């Protein structure tokens, strides 16, 4: 079975896994390729297995080539990209699009040039998301699980090295995975390649932003840099690709037209004499500090991945977006401790904006040949008169501080809104009532209306006037603002995100931070809302149900974490099964719901 991972054409088991993959088109393509290449096989006696493997490879490459974008930005040079959705979203490198600004053109192997617009930027990870315009049926490739990639796996790159793709058909270079989980140092605080994939396929200037594909034509990474030596900027057998798992972690944030930032623990680590990785310094303002981590604590694992070297630590952290909550395991004088830490950002938004404005020259970043480049309007920079945005682009670009292209944040927020509305179904807008038992005994009753929110607990009754500021008193006491969280939840469902204070699309995060799927199978949408004196982050699952509300009544205090176990599938607008309310490491309560109404039937 190990082989079926390398290619879907291996043994019988493998073949089955090929059929499972949604690609009858692929099988047709293979047949075609065999037909095309087979006839000449009569010329000489070659093992049929060799010809078959070749034909299959050709078919896979033909399919992947169609997803390769040749990015050109006039005199700004260009690079490569790879389409990841039928509506034209394409991943590339920050250092490729930065000089181009918000408008560029993308060429596909069909020989056509498409207008493209900048959507999101991740300078720290050297990633950018652009959108090709004009079609909703672009060919695209899927992101594989890069943690399943092994040293020695066959792989290939499709891109635009040295901008040779004058006919817009990408250059293909093949090789093997030379190393996994590599760490390549950043330039300053940006362009850090953490947990990246090293390949011996030729990666040259201009390959930047192009896809690195596995033998099944799935994206295992985005090529971004290479080690260059004595010969100047040409390939010498060591290219590096940003792992697909990292890309997936940031895709939501990028789609939101944001300037994305990477995570920091708020602590630096060093390897002790005995090789353990220990905290060498830690900020008292960090969540890690609040969770109890201190200098000299040994980091055992982070986000579910073991940490044995400083590189391993950087590799984990470097693939995580700012703001995620992840489990950390550490050891202090022999005792093993666990905690959930909320990761902060490496930069402030202001710093990121400055970086984007200034632009980036990667240390070894394969870029086009580097002819003098004309700088277009970078994000943050206003489009200059000389570079009037094309009509098609102007329609999908909106500048706003903190965003690379606010237009797409609205697009994503509205998508989530539709999901919430669908989940709400026909429920009326009356008061919400939820009754049930606390798991430690005793009963509770919650009522939330437009004017007031009340909760009856064995310990007493708390009330919150929902017409005014919600941060007046975080009630019930010790919850950090459970009632306010319930109010935000109800407003989002009843009025829709657009109508609730300043609500924007933040990106995605694991539905349950305690166990993160590195392959991102568990990512849910997250909205950020600021209303009536509070700030909240609200997680919405694929069914449009709100599964979590983190609510801050003051920025530097621990938020109230209202974790919602939604109604079972099928029961639209059904009652949630339970609440788990936490504050920092403290569990405030677990509410088992057995009755009530979410607004009753529609009037």
């Amino acid at each position, binding site marked *: 079975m190990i082989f079926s991972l*390398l*290619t879907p054409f*291996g043994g019988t088991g493998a073949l089955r896994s090929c059929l499972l993959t949604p690609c009858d088109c692929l099988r047709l393509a293979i047949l075609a390729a065999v037909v*095309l*290449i087979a006839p*000449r096989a009569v*010329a*000489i*006696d*070659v*093992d049929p297995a*060799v*010809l078959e*493997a*070749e034909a299959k*490879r*050709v078919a*896979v*490459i033909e399919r992947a080539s169609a997803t390769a974008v040749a990015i*050109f930005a*006039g*005199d700004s040079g260009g690079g490569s990209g790879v389409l990841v959705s039928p509506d034209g979203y394409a991943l590339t490198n920050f250092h490729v699009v930065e000089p181009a600004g918000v408008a560029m*053109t993308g*060429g596909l192997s069909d020989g056509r*040039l498409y207008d493209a617009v900048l959507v999101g930027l991740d300078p720290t990870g050297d990633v950018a998301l652009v959108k090709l315009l004009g079609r909703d049926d672009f060919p695209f490739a899927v992101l594989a699980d890069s943690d399943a990639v092994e040293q020695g796996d066959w792989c290939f790159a499709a891109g635009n090295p*040295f*901008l*040779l793709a*004058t*006919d817009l*058909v990408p*250059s*293909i*270079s*093949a090789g093997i995975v030379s190393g996994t989980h590599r760490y390549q140092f950043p*330039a300053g605080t940006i*362009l850090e390649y953490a947990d990246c994939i090293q390949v011996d396929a030729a*990666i*040259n200037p*201009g390959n930047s932003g192009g896809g690195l594909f596995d033998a099944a034509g799935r994206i295992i990474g985005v090529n971004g840099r290479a080690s260059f030596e*004595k*010969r*100047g*900027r*040409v390939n010498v057998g060591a290219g590096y690709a940003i792992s697909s798992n990292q890309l997936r972690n940031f895709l939501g944030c990028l789609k939101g037209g944001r300037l994305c930032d990477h995570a920091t623990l708020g602590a630096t680590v060093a390897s002790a004499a005995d090789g353990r990785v220990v905290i060498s310094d830690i900020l008292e303002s960090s969540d890690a500090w609040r969770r109890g981590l201190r200098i000299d604590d040994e980091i055992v694992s982070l986000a579910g991945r073991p940490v044995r070297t400083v590189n391993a630590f950087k590799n984990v952290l470097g693939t995580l977006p700012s703001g995620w909550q992840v489990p950390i395991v550490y050891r202090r004088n022999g005792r093993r401790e666990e905690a959930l830490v909320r990761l902060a950002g490496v930069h402030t938004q202001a710093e990121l904006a400055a970086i984007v404005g200034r*632009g980036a*020259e*990667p*240390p*070894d*970043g394969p870029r*086009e*040949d*580097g*002819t*003098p*480049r*004309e*700088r277009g309007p970078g994000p943050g920079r206003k489009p200059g008169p*000389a570079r009037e945005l094309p009509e098609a682009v102007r329609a999908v670009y909106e500048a706003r501080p903190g965003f690379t292209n606010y237009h797409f944040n609205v697009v994503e927020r509205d998508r989530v809104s539709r999901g919430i509305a669908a989940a709400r179904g026909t429920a009326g807008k009356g008061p919400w009532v939820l009754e049930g038992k606390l798991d430690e005994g005793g009963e509770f009753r919650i009522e939330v209306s437009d004017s007031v929110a009340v909760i009856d607990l064995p310990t007493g009754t708390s009330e919150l006037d929902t017409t005014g500021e919600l941060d007046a008193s975080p009630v019930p006491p010790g919850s950090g603002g459970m009632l306010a969280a319930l109010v935000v939840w109800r407003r989002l469902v009843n009025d829709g995100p657009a109508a609730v204070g300043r609500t924007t699309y933040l990106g995605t995060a694991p539905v349950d931070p305690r166990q993160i799927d590195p392959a991102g199978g568990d990512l849910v949408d997250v909205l950020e809302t600021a209303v009536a004196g509070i700030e909240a982050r609200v997680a919405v699952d694929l069914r449009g149900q709100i599964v979590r509300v983190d609510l801050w009544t003051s920025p530097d205090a621990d938020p109230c974490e209202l974790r919602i176990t939604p109604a079972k599938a099928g029961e639209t607008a059904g009652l949630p099964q339970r609440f788990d309310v936490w504050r920092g490491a403290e569990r405030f309560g677990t509410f088992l719901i057995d009755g009530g109404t979410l607004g009753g039937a529609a009037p």
Partner: protein
Amino acid sequence: MNMKRFASGIMATAALAALLAPTRATAEPTLAEEAAFQGAVARVAAAVVRIEPLALTAAAGAGVAEAAPGSGPSTGTIIAPGLVLTTSFAIPADVNDAVVVVPDGGRRAARVRSRDRSRGLVLLAVDGLPEPPPLGEVPRARLRPGQWAIAVGRGWSAAAPTVAVGIVSATNRAWGRGVQTDAAVSPVNYGGPLIDITGQVIGILAPLPAEPAGMTEGTELYDAGIGFAVPLEDILAVLPRLTTGESLDAGILGITYRSRDQINGEPVIGSVRQGSPAARAGLAPGDRIAVIDGHSITRVADARHAIGPKHAGDAVAVTVERTDATGKASRIEATTTLAAEMPPWRRAMIGVVADAEGDDAERGPVRIAWVLAGSPAEQAGITTGDAIESIVSGRNAGATAIEGRASAAGVLAGVEPGERITLSIRRDDAIREIEIDTIAMPGDVPTDGPPAASGGGDPLAGPLNAVEVVKLAGADIADPAVAVIPTGTGPVGVLVWAGIPHGKVAEAEAASWKAAAVRHGVAVVLVGSAEPAAWSRSDIAAVTRALAALHARRPIDATRIGIAGTGAGAAFAWMVAERLGPAAGGVALVEAALPQRAVVTPAEPAAGWWVLLGPGGDDAARDRVAADQRRLDKAGYPVGLMPQDDSDAPPAEILCRWVSVLGLL
């Protein structure tokens, strides 16, 4: 290692292996493929010969570390009885004899029969060649990216063919002349066959230039995973002609495009060379190419792909759309025969400099900022502030409306020096027609130049009475270049100066440039060398990045970029100019002549630098300078002599003045 112990182990191998071996095969038939590689190579081995460099052509090993490889044993392919095909890497243009080592080790004298210069191929006639089995051919139509591509050569060893394995990377590169592979291609296998897994020949490996990357030698990318082969199909199509001794050249149409962006750029003709096939076909500046030989053309690149594979003498059918001054659109179809070369192009001028154009310039009538003393323009009474609205030249039927400096230059590019043109000039809101006899560009730098204001004109910025000295930092530039930039916000000309290499540059070195930079509104970029005492190829990239960094902070007048250097810096300046191509307006080799390996291609409307040389100290040096001056003039370049200057300071004044007039019309 204890052999006895090992031997005892071997005996038990089979048994143990049977116990431990996995039962299934791998997805990649690794060993079967290995056997296939060797089988395929064996199939063509007899046709692959070694080409040994004659002492005469054997250059001493490559100079700087990054330099392209020099000579060395290379490869040829027996393409027909008595005929070996190889490349111009092994047999440079000035060489006619070669020594071929056949597979059995015997040496044969070879003579150049003919060349296909469009693809860098050379056909050798060799007596006493063994007759190899005929080569199988992979038709272009059957090429697929991803299929096996094996590069075979004999450069390493005459005894056994050398093997490099890769895949077909792309099937239509080098403007339609080449197949691209990621197999290792280098001087050792140039001229050898690129074969598929069955031993059929895809093409002949050749150092085709990676032109979109500004790599003109074709060897820069050796072993870098980007190699090219000329498809055998294309070679066989012209082999009969080559066999008769006819040499083939690339076909030239004789036009340039208005847009320098060949990927996105619209296929609008910028200039038509006098006496060119395009001119004979009646093509004119402003025409939009719609169809070439039945291929519809929407981008400059489409046009180049359509013409790229053609040879001189081939016919080409071009359909253009033309809008005349009255706005009437028409469609013109023309057929013409491509030429091998143009008579050297000479830049015609009337002697004016237009307002500097930055990125955001209005592409309208051209306002005149300065008139050259004694020029036809002055004699015709043209003065500063006049605006050129349109030009009528003998060549193009109607008047060409002028939209920005480029279109004016385009019209002049199609004008023979001495030819009369008619300008319609707007002055004080009155239009007047003025006839002017053009003259050829002068070589020497005029004694004055445009006022600085036109180099950086921006009323809001106030008078240009100061400069700022900045480091053009960039994350990947360890020792950033230093720039002297006149204050202001308007577009500036740029002078790149490469002195005696001495590692990084210090801000202090900027001092001697400030005055001239201000006077002429020219930004001066002082570049450092990566190596302590030598210029290297990597420094070229540093220059282009420095220009990018400068451009990021200040608009640049693209028509006024001059590259200058002295000593070792002069040779470097020439390399930089070669790298920038048309992006550079001039090259100044101070106290120097052309570098040894300099290639002087005939001037083109899109690429005709204004070159300054010398003067050179002793007589020998002066003779060389004089010779190079003739050589450049013959090729159509405006070329002038630097005045004698015994001071140690760089000739800032004259160089900045020169840059300020690079855009002479």
